[in-house]
């Protein structure tokens, strides 16, 4: 088995980077999803109000 480098700084930094990337990723994904849903709803409501909805 390859001996492990006992300078652990790199591993610790990697763990924090992965944690931060995961948390920021899910935060960005949620905000993007919310913005898309809001845009879609605004468009649908505008069409619904403007179009009259029937013959």
């Amino acid at each position: 088995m390859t001996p492990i480098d006992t300078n652990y700084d790199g591993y610790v930094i990697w763990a924090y980077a992965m944690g931060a990337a995961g948390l920021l990723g899910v935060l960005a994904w949620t905000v993007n999803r919310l913005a898309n849903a809001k845009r879609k709803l605004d468009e649908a409501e505008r069409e619904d109000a403007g179009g009259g909805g029937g013959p």
Partner: protein
Amino acid sequence: MAVMSFFHNPHRFMAGSKWPAWGFTLLGVVLIVVGFGIGFFRTPEDFQQDERARMMFVHVPAMWLCMFSYAFMVGASFISFVWRHALADVAAKSAAPIGAVFTAIGLMTGSIWGYTTWGTWWEWGDARLVSVLILFFIFLGYIAVWQAMETPQKAARAAAILCLVGAVNIPIIHFSVEWFASLHQQSTFMTTDNKTTAEFKIPMYLAALGYLALFGGLTLLNMRAEIMKTRADILLQRRQAAD
């Protein structure tokens, strides 16, 4: 029960959830930054694990919250299954991707910590590691069920059943280090015999509260997105039917 019936109306939920959603999200980010900051820069080296102990402030709250997320989904699925509560399905569906990310963070950081401590990135014979991996696949399966079914009603029913069946994995994860021989250490924080000093407890609890607040905030934001999307789809379908 009163809260459940109050939020049965999505309009009421939308009116009351906007500021709590953003407030919890912001609180979560602040607590995590402070907790990680103290853990990374201020906490002293551990006498046994030296620098490696700093990984606990990322790894342990992620593991707590992945189990909490799943327990939350089980509760919501149960409410959905028994009472057909309109928002319970939305709550469970919204929590799933966040729980999956917490599980992924727990698995990846645990793997790094394991390599530096046990000399291996992964051990298939270890019940704790494998049961958490199974939890991750259950999260993915739950998300896939929502995508795969042809109607939201069928998807909600199937996803709720999967979630309730998968609940059996949660006690297995928790007790795996006691029931089976494991490389993983036994519980340190959630015991009556907690000897951890304040230098470790403070950043740990700050980070854990941050993860919890972030989970609450992001779940509420996702629920809001889901409700907006559903309302937009209904309006579009109504428009198409009228044309």
